[in-house]
């Protein structure tokens, strides 16, 4: 198992914004693709690049973003899918040993991040964000140093959410831990102010983290959870994209606020909220060529 089960073929730039030393460099690495399937990885990686560069705010920042593909073959296709989690029991020999059912969690798809980092650091020392695309149609993925995602429809959303964490330090904006129906001990956020830029315990309009983005006409707090024993069931009282203080975030039902009713850091298939977009834009500003 491991690096003897395949071969690193090389690096290809698939979105070229300029020299790597000056740009923000995203690298997408193949896992569980046999040599005969590398053509498919070329298509999959390009598809990811196209989605990333048309997703706000990356679409406005594309002049500062390079995307590279690292072709790595595996002896066999797919990822391990243990029976213990209700999987097929498949145990393919792959380069990065990607497996579902990590820590006994069915959808938790994880590869050997250390090995991914070693491979890409050799090929492109200037990399900023690493992604591992796993050749499996089962829905799954994971975050961390290397954002990992399968080929299931919508799994690219996992990569976009995880990039928010890994590259920009964004917090989770969902207001539950295991789920609204099954949470226990997640009623009130009783802690200090979170260090992440997109959640806050400060409900003061003038001093809260994203105060400059809140319109004078927007109520603050914008929503309040009437029953902290569960998630707030009310729909948004304001039009989409309104920035305010919405109660419930950071795995707690109450006493912590998110900037918009919805966001990709709260739920997949949603755009990034205005605050997250601003954070990403600020972090990527030094990578843009002078205009």
């Amino acid at each position, binding site marked *: 198992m491991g690096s003897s089960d395949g071969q690193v073929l090389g690096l290809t730039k698939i979105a070229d914004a300029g*020299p790597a*030393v000056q740009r923000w460099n995203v690298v997408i690495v193949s896992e569980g693709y046999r040599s005969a399937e590398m053509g498919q990885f070329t298509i999959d990686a390009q598809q990811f690049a196209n989605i990333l560069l048309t997703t706000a705010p990356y679409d406005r920042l594309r002049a500062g973003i390079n995307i590279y593909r690292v072709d790595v073959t595996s002896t066999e296709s797919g990822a391990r899918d243990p029976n213990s989690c209700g999987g097929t029991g498949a145990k393919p020999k792959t380069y990065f040993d990607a497996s579902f059912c990590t820590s006994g969690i069915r959808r938790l798809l994880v590869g050997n991040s*250390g090995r991914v980092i070693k491979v890409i650091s050799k090929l492109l020392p*200037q990399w900023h964000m690493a992604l591992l695309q796993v050749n499996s149609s089962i829905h799954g993925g994971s975050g961390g140093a290397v954002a990992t995602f399968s080929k299931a429809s919508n799994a690219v959303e996992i990569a976009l959410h995880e990039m928010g964490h890994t*590259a920009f330090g964004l917090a989770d904006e*969902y207001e539950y831990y295991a789920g609204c129906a099954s949470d226990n001990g997640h009623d009130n956020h009783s802690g*200090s102010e979170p260090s*992440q830029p997109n959640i806050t315990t400060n409900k003061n309009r003038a001093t809260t983290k994203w105060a400059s983005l809140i319109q004078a006409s927007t109520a603050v707090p914008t929503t309040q959870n009437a029953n902290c024993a569960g998630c707030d069931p009310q729909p948004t009282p304001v039009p989409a994209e309104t920035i305010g203080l919405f109660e419930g975030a950071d795995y707690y039902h109450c006493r912590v606020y998110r900037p918009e009713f919805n966001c990709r850091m709260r739920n997949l298939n949603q755009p990034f909220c205005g605050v997250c977009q601003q954070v990403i834009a600020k972090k990527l500003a030094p990578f843009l060529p002078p205009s």
Partner: protein
Amino acid sequence: MANTRRKATKAKSRKSLTKAKSRKRTVAAKSRKSVAKKAKPAKRAAKSKARQRLAGLKSRKPVASSKARKPAKKTTSRRAVTKPKSVKPLAKSPKAVRLTFSYQGDQVKLVSQQPVEMTVPPSDSLKGYEDHKGFWAEVKSAQDKTLFRRVLHNPTRNDAEVFSDDPEQSISREPAPKRTGVFVVVVPDTEKGHEVTLSRSSGQPDIAPEGSPRGMTAMRSLATGPATEIARFKLKK
């Protein structure tokens, strides 16, 4: 007598000839040294220029890499050595260090420091976070002044984000105790940077109380107190 004098004169002239030759050799060596000294910055500049261009790496056209080699050859030529003034000064490449950490439970180790010429995203706020919760890395000066700070989504959590097809709750968390892994922080490589520190909010132990159902354990990732320093490492110079 005359013979002895002639011999002495011959010996003298041979001696002075050897001295002159050795003087000549020293001058030549000195001038070679000075040329080499002058050549060094030119060579360094050429190397850095080539490195910069190579950083663009293999684009789809292999032409890019062959182009990168040309200037390096030019500047090592005699012309470049004898006329160092003709070498244009280059803009400084941004210097950075890629720090790779590994963790096992609560233990964090710095496993490598890789110097890289690359642009680093700007620092997070250096002030006003003293009582904040979370996880961050800082570059400190010898006087322990914070020079750079990067807020991270806690990479040493003992739970994991899980994704489902449920459109209402497509993301949730599940305990995943005793996780091991790696994480990477890229920081600017500056003269003043002396150490790197990691800070994390304190939390509960990584063990579920006996009999507690899955998902009810107080998780380290849910630590609510202000972050405190958990590790400090020297930066290589």
